[in-house]
C-alpha cells in the first residue's frame, strides 16, 4: 500500500461499493485472555451493520479496536484504504474521521450540550468559533436537542444525554459512526427517543456499525447482522435470516432468548 493520503470531503462522489472501514484478522489479547479472535469484517458506504451476542463476548473490545481507542494485538484496521494499524499513522487525525458513541455516554461533564458538540470542531478541525457554533447547533437540531443546548449533562435525562453523544459523534461528518450499545445503559422508557434518532441517521444513509440488542430496530435498518460470541464472528446474514432460521445453534438459542425478552417487554 502506497502512502497516498485520502482526505474526507463529505459524501459527494462516493460510491455505494466503496469500503469505508475494514478489519483483517484482528486479534486483541489482555494478558492470557483473548477478547477478539481473528475477526475480519467490512463496512461499505451507507451500510448499517449490527453486531450482537452475549455479554462479555468481546463486542465492545472489537468496536473499540476499530476506532483505535484500543490498540489491537494483531491484524489490521483500514479506514478508506488507509491502514490505521501502521506505526506511522497519525491516529488523532484518523479518530477525527470516526464517530464513536459510548454505552455509558461519557459526555464532558463540565461542558454544556453545545460545548460537548463543539469541542472537536474547535480543537481538532480548528474551525472558527462562529462556524463551529453553527454546525454544532445544526447537529443538535438533528437529534432534536436544540433547545437543550445550554444545559449541562447532569441536567439532562439519560436519553437526552445519549442524543447529545450522537450529535457529538456526527457533527464532524465522520466517514463512519461506531455505536457501542448506545441504549443498553438507559432506562427502558428512554430507549425509544434514542432509537428514533438512530433511525433518522439510517434514513440519511449514514454508515454505521452498531453493537445493539434492539431487535425490532435491527430488523428495520440493518443491512447485515453479525452474531458474535467468544471473541469471534459466529454467523453473519441479513436480519431475516436471524429472525426466521439462523444456521448456527448458538445464534438460534440466543435469538430465541432475545425474542422472548422483547415480547415480555
Amino acid at each position, binding site marked *: 500500500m502506497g502512502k497516498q493520503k485520502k482526505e474526507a470531503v463529505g459524501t459527494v462522489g462516493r460510491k455505494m461499493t466503496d469500503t469505508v472501514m475494514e478489519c483483517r484478522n484482528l486479534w486483541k489479547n489482555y494478558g492470557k485472555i483473548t477478547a477478539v479472535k481473528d475477526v475480519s469484517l467490512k463496512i461499505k458506504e451507507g451500510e448499517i451493520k449490527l453486531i450482537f451476542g452475549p455479554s462479555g463476548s468481546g463486542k465492545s473490545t472489537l468496536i473499540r479496536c476499530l476506532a483505535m481507542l484500543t490498540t489491537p494485538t494483531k491484524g489490521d484496521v483500514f479506514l478508506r484504504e488507509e491502514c490505521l494499524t501502521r506505526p506511522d499513522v497519525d491516529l*488523532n487525525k484518523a479518530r477525527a474521521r470516526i464517530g464513536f458513541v459510548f454505552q455509558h455516554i461519557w459526555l464532558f461533564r463540565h461542558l454544556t450540550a453545545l460545548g460537548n458538540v463543539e469541542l472537536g470542531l474547535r480543537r481538532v478541525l480548528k474551525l472558527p468559533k462562529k462556524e463551529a457554533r453553527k454546525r454544532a447547533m445544526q447537529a443538535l437540531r438533528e437529534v432534536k436537542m436544540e433547545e437543550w443546548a445550554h444545559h449541562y*449533562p447532569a441536567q439532562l435525562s439519560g436519553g437526552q444525554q445519549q442524543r447529545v453523544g450522537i450529535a457529538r459523534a456526527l457533527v464532524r461528518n465522520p466517514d463512519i459512526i461506531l455505536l457501542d450499545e448506545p441504549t443498553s445503559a438507559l432506562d427502558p422508557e428512554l430507549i425509544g427517543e434514542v432509537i428514533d434518532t438512530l433511525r433518522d441517521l439510517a434514513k440519511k444513509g449514514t454508515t454505521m456499525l452498531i453493537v445493539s440488542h434492539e431487535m425490532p430496530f435491527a430488523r428495520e435498518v440493518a443491512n447485515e447482522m453479525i452474531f458474535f460470541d467468544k471473541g469471534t464472528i459466529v454467523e453473519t446474514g441479513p436480519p431475516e435470516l436471524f429472525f426466521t432460521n439462523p444456521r448456527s445453534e448458538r445464534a438460534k438459542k440466543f435469538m430465541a432468548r432475545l425474542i422472548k425478552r422483547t415480547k415480555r417487554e
Partner: protein
Amino acid sequence: MLRGVSTTLFISILSFLLGLATGLPLAFIRAYGSKPFQILVDVYEKVFRGIPELVMMLLFFFGVGFVLRYPFKNAFFTVIFVLGLRSAANQSQIFRGAIRGIGEEQMVAASSLGLSKVQSIIHVMIPQVFIFSTPGLGSEYALLVKDSSYAFIIGVLEIMEMTDRIRKATGDTLTPFLLGAFLYVLITFPIATWLDIWGSRKKKQLGL
C-alpha cells in the same frame, strides 16, 4: 502593619501559583507518564513533603545562598521558592486524587474525537480537576498563609515580623500577637471559604 499584610498575601498567593504551575504537570506526569517519570514525581513529593519548611528555608537562604548568591540571597525569593515547591508536592497529590476521581472515561471520550493527549488534558481534564480539587486547594492556600510566617526567620517583613517589631517597640507581649493571629485568620478564611463554596456549587451543577 498594612505592609506586613500585603507581604504575607503576596507570598501566599505567589507560592500558591508556583505550586499550581508545578504541581499540575507533576500530577499528570504521575497519572499518565512513563514509569521512570512517575517514580521521579513520587520521590519529589516525598522529599518536599518530608522536610520541614523552616529547615528548607534556612538551607536555601544560608546554605545554597552561600554558594549561589543569586538568587537565593534574596530572602523574598527564597521564601516563595521554598513554599512554592513544597506546595507543588501537596498540590500534585491533590490533583492526582482528582484525576483518579474523574476517571479514564473522559480521556477516552476526548481521544475518540481526535483530541491529542495534551489537548484532552487541557480542554477536558484540567477544568474538571480544578472543580474536583477545591476543598483541598482551599486548605492548601490556608496552609501557605500560615507557613509564610516562617519567612520572618530570614527577615522578610510580613505579618509575623511586623508583630515582633511592634512587640519590641512597645514592650506589649500580648496585643501584637493577638492582632497578628487575627490578621492571619482574616486573610485565610474568606478565600478558602469562597473556594469551597464555589467548588461545591459547581460540583452540584455538573453532577460531579
